[in-house]
């Protein structure tokens, strides 16, 4: 019934970079269909985007991709995604720590709640956050009394990205924290290290790759996020207009070149982040083994 009932053969455990000898059928068929479907759905459309950009010529592309308005949008998208991912790394670490290390009433409920942002549609989160942080909203009103304005400012964008990014950090850090050998901590303690010293010198280095992976996943999500952001952002050009929104605005103005160029910049940023995430995950695995 469970995966644990079928022990993996020990012969498969070593690196296994050699060709796996197997009599299983269907390799050509399944690989062929996989590559075909992948090409039709993902690769060909993305190639169309890159091709459309290349048709503009270098000067044309630069002119379309880097206008003052789009530069402001990139700065905003990258900046808010970075700040939100940094905040969520700290908050996510605290939540993962509490879920792994302590037991308290309501823990299972708390654990289930962590995944809500994965399941709640972004537009739903967007209008809910906008109503909470509006000037007469649950949190917007007390914040306004303090002279703080969140809705319709870049701060609102960060709030929305905290929501979307949180589970990435918690769910990446949690398993690593779980596998951490407590004996090393105990050894550090018995050698006279204080709890803070043990955390900084023993625990943190071991979980750092996982935290950075979570950070990168949250950053990647934040960079492209649209639905949860546009309701709370205010969408003022040059101030609170994110890059994905600018793509849609360009499309609505039938400025296909502008939309294509900005989308290509965002696509490349996504590729780079994906590359970094893959590299971090390999580092994470090496640490874990």
């Amino acid at each position: 019934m469970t995966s644990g009932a079928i022990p993996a053969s020990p012969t498969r455990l070593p690196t296994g970079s050699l060709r796996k000898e197997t009599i299983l059928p269907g390799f050509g068929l399944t690989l062929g269909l996989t590559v075909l479907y992948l090409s039709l759905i993902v690769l060909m459309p993305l190639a169309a985007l890159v091709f459309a950009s290349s048709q503009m010529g270098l000067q044309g592309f630069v002119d379309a991709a880097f206008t003052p308005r789009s530069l402001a949008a990139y700065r905003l998208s990258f900046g808010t995604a970075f700040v939100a991912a940094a905040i969520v790394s700290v908050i996510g670490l605290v939540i993962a720590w509490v879920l792994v290390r302590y037991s308290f009433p309501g823990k299972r409920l708390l654990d289930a709640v962590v995944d809500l942002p994965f399941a709640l549609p972004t537009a739903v989160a967007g209008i809910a956050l906008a109503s909470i942080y509006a000037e007469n909203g649950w949190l917007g009103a007390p914040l306004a009394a303090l002279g703080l304005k969140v809705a319709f400012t870049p701060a609102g964008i960060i709030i929305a990205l905290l929501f979307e990014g949180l589970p990435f950090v918690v769910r990446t850090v949690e398993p690593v924290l779980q596998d951490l050998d407590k004996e090393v901590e105990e050894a550090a303690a018995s050698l006279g290290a204080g709890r803070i010293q043990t955390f900084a010198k023993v625990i943190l280095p071991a979980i750092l790759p996982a935290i950075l992976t979570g950070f990168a996943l949250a950053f990647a999500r934040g960079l492209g996020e649209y639905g949860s952001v546009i309701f709370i952002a205010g969408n003022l050009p040059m101030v609170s207009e994110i890059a994905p929104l600018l793509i849609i605005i360009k499309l609505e103005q039938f400025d296909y070149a502008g939309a294509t160029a900005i989308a290509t910049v965002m696509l490349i940023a996504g590729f780079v982040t994906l590359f970094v995430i893959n590299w971090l995950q390999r580092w994470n695995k090496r640490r874990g083994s």
Partner: protein
Amino acid sequence: MAGATTSKSRIAAAEPLWLRLMLIGLAILFLTLIVILPLVAVFAEALRQGIGAYFASFDDPDVLAAIRLTLLVAAIAVPLNTVFGVLASWAIAKFEFIGKSLLVTLIDLPFSVSPVVAGLVYVLVFGIHGWFGPWLVANNVQIIFAVPGLVLATIFVTFPFVARELIPLMEEQGNEEEEAALSLGASGLRTFLRVTLPNIKWGLLYGILLCNARAMGEFGAVSVVSGHIRGETNTMPLYVEILYNEYNFVAAFAVASLLAMLALVTLVLKKVIEWRFGGASTVG
């Protein structure tokens, strides 16, 4: 005596009580502020003018059309991605070949592409000014601003969900059981249905669940290809935006509450499967 030293260092390797309580309190506070409050707000806003106004919101043919369209799009996109996910994980988990890690990376690619970009690429291929635009117009086929475009954009953004659940699971299980069945004379298909499928069913269900939640809730990608034609190309999340922008807040949150309930059901089922399947949750 060994036990005594162990328990002593156990105590030293734990946080003082005040710090534990503070961290637990912080975790609860963070989750309440960031995650729980928005969920509660959806239902509070939907019921702001009472239960009557809430149900009256669904008395709108455009709402019903949006619900039907959302179900239709998911009913096409999810099974296609499920079949793809099973095929891909069979090829990737059961065989070794050159370029395998590249293939896995490419399957994950849609997670790193902004949903808006995902929608745009289909406009560039199938839109009036796109690659196939003139041909599609000449043959009277509409993809962009129509249901096929919504389906394609949804398939793109939910592409990796099933495959990435199944690949690690099938890799962990190895090939021995399938090889035993085959050497006993079972056909390939029969081996898959009788041996592989029972072993992966919980992981598969989990992947389908996440894929479906995202498919029904997708906003950015479908927003680009929809054209927002009332009663025709508005899915539920798109119609929520329209109602919200028309200051029809009760109706917007009422439709949103259905999507929130879908999210809650997804979470509960996910927890039930995790419990049966014994696996830890993975990053989606």
